[in-house]
């Protein structure tokens, strides 16, 4: 056991693809800053039929947040809830294990499934973040249509993604099914090349 246990270290979803450093255009400040967000705790929460108020109360007790309406994302620091479908949300917390016990806490109110390893998440910022995203996202990201606290489940380069906006600079976060990380990265790198892209180790 002992000699094997040392091997058990998680591997980041972006490890194989995201090379730290400057990519694309070299001169001037980078238009896009990308930070892979590894090690988050993620869980999908799907409401049981009729759970309504009970679930909302249990969520408030656990997160101090209300359940976001369709298209909304609510955060308290780095912990948040992102609407991801009718009666369905994605819960986020900063460190693996932070959402342990959520299933038990929501017993009979919601089905909880750990997704910490199922989604690969990127944080995107920088002056051209929106222009980069507009190459792939068909949803309107203009500030009049999409702002901090909004989310969309959609596709980028034929890859299903969930996108939410964290602040109005703007900073976005993008979650993609883990197995697609390589293909999504290759799209992102090409889309960002004209603006210059800086990949950082963490947000």
């Amino acid at each position, binding site marked *: 056991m002992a000699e094997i246990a040392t091997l058990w270290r998680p591997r980041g979803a972006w490890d194989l693809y995201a090379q730290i450093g400057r990519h694309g255009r070299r001169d001037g400040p980078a238009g896009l800053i990308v930070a892979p967000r590894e090690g988050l705790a993620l869980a999908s929460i799907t409401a049981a039929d009729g759970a309504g108020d009970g679930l909302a109360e249990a969520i408030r007790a656990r997160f101090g947040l209300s359940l976001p309406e*369709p*298209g909304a994302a609510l955060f308290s620091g780095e912990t948040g809830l992102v609407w*991801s*479908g*009718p009666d*369905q949300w994605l819960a986020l917390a900063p460190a693996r294990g932070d959402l342990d016990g959520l299933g038990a806490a929501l017993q009979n109110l919601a089905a909880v499934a750990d997704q910490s390893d199922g989604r690969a998440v990127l944080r995107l910022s920088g002056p051209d973040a929106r222009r980069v995203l507009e190459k792939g996202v*068909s*949803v309107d990201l203009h500030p009049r249509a999409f702002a901090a606290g909004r989310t*969309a*489940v*959609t*596709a980028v380069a034929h890859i*299903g993604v969930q996108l939410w906006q964290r602040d109005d600079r703007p900073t976005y976060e993008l979650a993609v099914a883990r197995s697609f990380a390589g293909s999504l990265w290759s799209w992102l790198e090409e889309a960002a090349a004209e603006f210059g892209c800086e990949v950082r180790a963490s947000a």
Partner: protein
Amino acid sequence: MRIRCPYCGERDNGEFSYLGDAAPVRPDGMDASSEAMHDYVYLRDNRAGEIRELWYHAAGCRSWLVVTRDTRTHAITDVQPAREVAKTRRAETRLAETRTVTPAGSASHA
């Protein structure tokens, strides 16, 4: 084409996949006849005009939707979550059954 998902807002039709006419109702249960099932699986009206049809928001919230579309113009006048439509239909069917049972019941009492 653009379809206004009741949850996600208006999206490109590329995010959706199409099934077809929403009118046929599955004959559930062990006593479903093969004729009724045949009609459910195969028979469609193929109307020129307004039709209620099923779409799936595959690249979005994964909702099945009932879209009211004019097959001549592609004009979409209504989009509803299929689950809500189906629940309402179930409730209406149950109500209708109750109504047809009640007079017969009172007749037997008479």
